[in-house]
């Protein structure tokens, strides 16, 4: 078989190349030719096509995402910002946390188990490549309607994939979300988050400095997984061999990933790694171009040295393979023996495939012939940037005008409470989360269904000095709110995640996001995206929490029908003394129950409108970020002073659902009284609110603290008894709440 070498490319300048089949536009291809001064070889085309894809280059989103940097609030905590594998924040006492959320939506629709499993694997490797020990994961999931047939195919597979991979890795799954809406039926969202810990002075970066340093590929061998377009390329260029149909979804091996984690940590501890990069999307193409671009600038690689699971792979396929559980490290020649010995201890195959050069070129050979010779930065950093046109959707004004004001209000609020509590979005998610190990590593202070997951950090890394600190994490996002107003919807997602972290007593510190949208080529979708990014960037500035990284997932649509715009926002917070964490809900009898924040009649995009009327219209609740910030300050200060026994954020389903969930936390009832119109008080979804429970003797001090921060505080009643009693409105035994809440998902999924 002919190898499409650089020499051959020079001598056959007019040979047609299948750039269109690889998703490349004519002008993009022309630019490659201009950069190289000739046509690209098949291998070079493979590299440019994947590196310049939407997924790797952010070509449609870049111009908008810049706001996360230009509008970023000042933060002393930010150690590594956007652009690396994951952001890193200073959490005090010499510790740093690194966290990121990433989508694996499309693979999870095609093959739910492996799609979701490899989503977890990928984000964990991002965290490892920062030099950190991964310490927990969480997942934000969106599915079609619970009653829809395909949801019964996709959801169990996704949950099993996450469960199998994460459990096998030994990472506790401490939170996340599960929500249902018919808009996701052909486009489920699987957004996986991982958080890791490291000592602040031990951050690793994806860089290949030092000519003569060795490039080591380690972990699993390379097979024909997730190659996608590469087979097209191989077969289109070389007509003499028909390529077997390659699986488009990667297959995960969590056991290998667990070995990789322990192996990497030992390599870091031995100080034998100069630079490191995980192999995710675009595999060897991405790792070599990015490492080289950020280092001395050159790299020489012999592709024949890449260990293969399938020896028939062509170089183009090796370059594009997305085989999982692989890492690439840059290692000083003198450290190679120590590096290899550690890999051997962990049974992790490792191979030197090349070295760093000062030529400014990424050069790859195949059986002695040069098949790639490019300036690496042109593939890694200088991809196309698009200013996609956008405009408000044609139906947006009508959607906003269709307010929920005219919807019939329920006569029976008790029935409405139970109807909502047993609806798929608000029902217990134990069917899902009981399949995740939340205890492994013994650092889990709070896990689902708590408002945020919380971990102690003192024992996360063997030998590091102890600290009382802990970290809290929450992800949130409401596609219905964002559909009604993407600017406010993104802000509300941040506000809720911020609040969920604050109610546990942790101070919100930094943000990651996963932006799930339809096609950027649709100006109406692009408008949603532009508005959401603008809203999130503005909100981050107001709340003083910088975006540290994240991921954009476009093309979540079937035909011309896009999903609701769904920005999912993750917030990381720090609590100085983890022993002072505030648990979720009513933790004891005889405690005062108070509602913080004001309630207005806000039902646009609400769970009530959705469940009771199948209605989506009007405007989402107002995002009052100054109020949100004040509420957060009260919660964090009150927790530090030991004033809070329990708390719970108010969100979907409003006060009614927050009260019910608080009762369910420990099976303790409460008697409360409302001061306003009962339906609005119970079911409005006004933002910036939380429930707290306070010892009676501490109530005055707590109320004074609220007054100091100008946070409205309304005493509602007291905990105790075996029922939730809303005086003059409704009374439901806790056991009935439990049956309704816990029975809904098992009734659908078995």
């Amino acid at each position, binding site marked *: 078989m002919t190898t499409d070498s650089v020499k051959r490319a020079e001598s056959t300048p007019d040979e047609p190349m299948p750039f269109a089949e690889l998703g490349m536009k004519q002008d993009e291809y022309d630019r490659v030719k201009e950069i190289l001064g000739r046509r690209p070889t098949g291998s070079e085309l493979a590299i440019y096509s994947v590196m310049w894809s939407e997924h790797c280059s952010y070509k449609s989103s870049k111009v908008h995402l810049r706001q996360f940097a230009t509008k970023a609030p000042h933060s002393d905590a930010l150690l590594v910002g956007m652009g690396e594998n994951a952001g890193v924040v200073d959490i005090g006492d010499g510790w740093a946390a690194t966290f990121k959320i990433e989508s694996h939506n499309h693979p999870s629709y095609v093959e739910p188990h492996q799609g979701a499993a490899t989503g977890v694997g990928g984000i964990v490797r991002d965290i490892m490549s920062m030099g950190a020990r991964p310490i927990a994961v969480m997942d934000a999931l969106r599915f079609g309607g619970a009653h829809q047939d395909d949801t019964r195919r996709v959801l169990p597979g996704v949950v*099993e994939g996450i*469960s*199998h991979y994460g*459990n*096998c*890795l*030994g990472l506790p799954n401490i939170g996340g979300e599960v929500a249902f809406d018919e808009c996701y039926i052909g486009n489920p969202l699987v957004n996986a988050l991982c958080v890791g810990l490291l000592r602040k002075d031990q951050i690793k970066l994806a860089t290949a400095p030092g000519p003569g340093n060795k490039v080591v590929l380690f972990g699993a061998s390379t097979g024909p997984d997730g190659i996608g377009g590469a087979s097209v390329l191989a077969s289109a260029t070389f007509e003499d061999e028909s390529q077997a149909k390659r699986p488009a979804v990667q297959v995960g*091996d*969590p*056991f*290998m990933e*667990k*070995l990789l984690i322990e192996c990497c940590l030992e390599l870091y501890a031995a100080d034998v790694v100069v630079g490191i990069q995980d192999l995710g999307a675009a595999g060897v193409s991405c790792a070599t171009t990015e490492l080289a671009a950020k280092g001395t600038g050159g790299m020489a690689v012999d592709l024949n040295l890449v260990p293969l699971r399938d020896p028939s792979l062509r170089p183009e396929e090796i370059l594009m393979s997305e085989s999982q559980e692989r890492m690439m490290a840059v290692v000083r020649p003198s450290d190679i023996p120590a590096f290899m010995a550690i890999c051997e201890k*962990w*049974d992790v195959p490792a191979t030197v495939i090349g070295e760093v050069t000062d030529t400014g070129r990424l050069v790859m050979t195949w059986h002695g012939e040069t098949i790639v010779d490019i300036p690496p930065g042109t593939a890694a950093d200088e991809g196309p940037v698009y200013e996609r046109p956008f405009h408000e959707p044609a139906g947006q004004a009508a959607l906003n005008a269709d307010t929920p004001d005219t919807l019939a209000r329920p006569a029976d609020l008790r029935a409405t409470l139970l109807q909502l509590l047993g609806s798929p979005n608000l029902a217990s998610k134990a069917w899902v*989360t*009981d*399949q*995740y*190990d*939340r*205890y*492994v*590593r*013994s*650092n*889990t*202070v709070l896990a689902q269904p708590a408002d945020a997951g919380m971990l*102690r950090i003192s*024992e996360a890394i*063997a030998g590091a000095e102890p600290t009382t600190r802990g970290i809290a994490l929450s992800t949130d996002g409401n596609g219905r709110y964002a559909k009604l107003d993407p600017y406010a919807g993104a802000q509300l997602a941040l506000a809720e995640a911020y609040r969920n972290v604050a109610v546990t007593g942790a101070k919100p510190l930094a943000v990651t996001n996963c932006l799930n949208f339809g096609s950027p080529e649709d100006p109406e979708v692009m408008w949603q995206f532009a508005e959401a990014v603008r809203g999130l960037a503005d909100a981050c500035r107001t709340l003083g929490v910088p975006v540290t990284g994240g991921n954009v997932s476009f093309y979540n649509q079937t035909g011309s029908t896009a999903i609701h715009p769904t920005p999912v926002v993750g917030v990381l917070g720090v609590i100085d003394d*983890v*022993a002072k964490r505030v648990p979720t809900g009513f933790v004891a009898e005889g405690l005062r129950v108070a509602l913080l924040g004001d309630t207005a009649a806000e039902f646009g995009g609400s769970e009530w409108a959705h469940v009771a009327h199948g209605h989506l219209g009007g405007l989402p609740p107002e995002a009052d970020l100054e109020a949100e910030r004040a509420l957060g300050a009260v919660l964090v200060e009150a927790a530090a002073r030991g004033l809070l026994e329990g708390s719970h954020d108010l969100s979907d389903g409003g006060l009614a659902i927050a009260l019910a969930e608080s009762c369910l936390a420990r099976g303790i009832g409460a008697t409360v009284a409302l001061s306003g119109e009962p339906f609005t008080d119970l079911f409005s979804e006004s933002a910036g609110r939380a429930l707290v429970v306070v010892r009676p003797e501490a109530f005055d001090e707590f109320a004074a603290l609220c007054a100091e921060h100008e946070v409205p505080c309304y005493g509602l009643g007291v905990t105790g008894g075996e029922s939730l009693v809303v005086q003059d409105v409704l009374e439901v035994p806790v056991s009935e709440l439990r049956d309704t809440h816990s029975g809904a998902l098992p009734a659908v999924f078995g």
Partner: protein
Amino acid sequence: MSAARVGVVTFPGTLDDQDAARAVRLVGAEAVPLWHGDHDLKGVDAVFLPGGFSYGDYLRCGAISRFAPLMEELIPAARAGLPVLGTCNGFQILCEAHLLPGALTRNASLHYVCRDQRVRIESTATAWTNAFAEGQEITLPVKHGEGRYVASAETLAALEAGGQVVVRYVGGNPNGAMNDIAGIRNEAGNVVGLMPHPEHAVEELVGAPSTDGLGFFTSILKKLVNA
């Protein structure tokens, strides 16, 4: 007197090893790391085989681990009376190694299950449960996909008759185990296998909402100190 030394074994894919070591230290014993590839028990007084997915559990759970070099040392030592506790994957390994009878198969639900489970201590005549009272009910987390204990009718009858059922699920059986069995011992009582995880129920702050797991660690300490 030097502290009691409890070995904690790490296989490739072991996950709960550091949790087990922490629990050992919490009761004042010394945790000694043991590596699967070594022919060396390092002179420990007892051994904890923690949970996880050794070798990925790609064959039967525990089927490969039982052949590890360390197991070649551990199996005869256990037969000679060395106290050994295997939890979860450790229990599976003990069964594969024939130190305990029966086997652990896929949960009846076909799903992995992680929950706080009520269990009853049925036998205190072991190196690992002597600090409990017989019939005492405690809460421990379970977290496994293959924890359904099965054995032949004769084996079950012998286990029941010999008082070898150590821990039984109460208030619901998470995996369909025969006779609600959560843990068993060998005839001598030095080897115990458990599906629940005592090492995740030893501190107020973290893990399961109970510290009931501590009893397993104080039991071995008591056993070793009195020996």
